[in-house]
């Protein structure tokens, strides 16, 4: 609470206007949200887990990194100034953890074993059954499986951008802020990722 008051005082002394007030309110909201960390975990854990699961396609690694993400957020909660939304901040931590994980030796081991990796059947089984005919359901499952396989073959950066855009439904500028890239670089990765997926989808027809 003291931090919030300090932040508000420093921001008000630094400028004025409705935009500034709005930014202050957003920061205060984010910092108040962060104050109840159990609630933060409850609200954002599914989202972070989904991002990591989609990116890594490994249950254990995704679960482990999700917990590590919230551990880091808890440790660094005093450094959070509300410059970005809490969601963006947590996602940025998760992206950094994933990068480290991909660089580590342990991943190479897991890449070989893939003991807890998601299977394409896990994905296609979740296609809703509310489709007219069994044929259309089968076609839908084939398409999801094709996307799944194509995403797995993307480079790490392409996959991150793709997942943030099409699974997390972030805007391109949000993606750029989250992963620390230029907007044009984000667009470039997304363009290449979609080209690969489109090519795979054409092959899957």
């Amino acid at each position, binding site marked *: 609470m003291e931090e919030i008051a300090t932040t508000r005082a420093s921001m008000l002394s630094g400028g004025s206007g409705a935009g500034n007030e709005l930014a202050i309110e957003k920061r205060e909201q984010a910092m108040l949200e962060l104050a109840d960390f159990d609630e933060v975990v409850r609200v954002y854990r*599914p989202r972070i887990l989904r991002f990591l699961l989609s990116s890594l396609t490994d249950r254990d690694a995704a679960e482990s990194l999700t917990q590590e993400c919230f551990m880091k957020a808890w440790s660094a909660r005093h450094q959070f100034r509300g410059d970005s939304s809490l969601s963006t901040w947590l996602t940025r931590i998760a992206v950094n953890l994933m990068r480290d994980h991909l660089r580590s030796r342990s991943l190479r081991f897991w890449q070989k074993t893939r003991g807890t990796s998601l299977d394409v059947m896990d994905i296609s089984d979740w296609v809703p059954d509310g489709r007219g005919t069994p044929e259309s359901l089968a076609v839908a499952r084939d398409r999801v499986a094709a*996307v799944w396989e194509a995403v797995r073959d993307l480079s790490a950066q392409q996959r991150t951008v793709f997942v943030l855009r099409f699974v997390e439904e972030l805007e391109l500028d949000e993606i750029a802020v989250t992963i620390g890239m230029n907007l044009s670089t984000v667009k470039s990765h997304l363009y290449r990722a979609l080209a690969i997926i489109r090519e795979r*989808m054409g092959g899957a027809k």
Partner: protein
Amino acid sequence: MKFRRDAVADNTANETREEVREIAEALSLYRSAMQHIAEREAARPLTPGLAQTIADRRPARTIPFGLLLAPALTAAVVAAVLVPVYGHFHHQHGAPPAPIVIAAQQNPNDTHAAVDDTALMNQIDSEVSEDVPDALRPLADLSDQTTTTSAVSEKNNATQE
């Protein structure tokens, strides 16, 4: 001719639109599938409360470091302080009493030895200065007489020569 070109263009546009629609639908299904899987995974219970985990893990991360360093530093400081102090006190106060004790223990012996020596010397003196026993008296006279006789005879011989 123009009509045919437009028809081809329309077909191409329709195909592209259809392809885009299929891709969009596939991406939507993929998103839906990932959300369902993530919800299922997230429904699995997290280890007992993240805050509790943090509280449990924070000391676990710091304690080994402290456990290793703190006692070692304490022992080093205690040793650094106590060893010179002990040595100082041992040198100043501890060492002198021991010789005193030894001296105190040795003095009676020395006195006893001195007394014994005195007594022994007195005894020797008294025995040496004691008169010649009677049984040895004639021999003592004879010895004196022999000495005197030999001296006289030597003197006579010298005169004759």
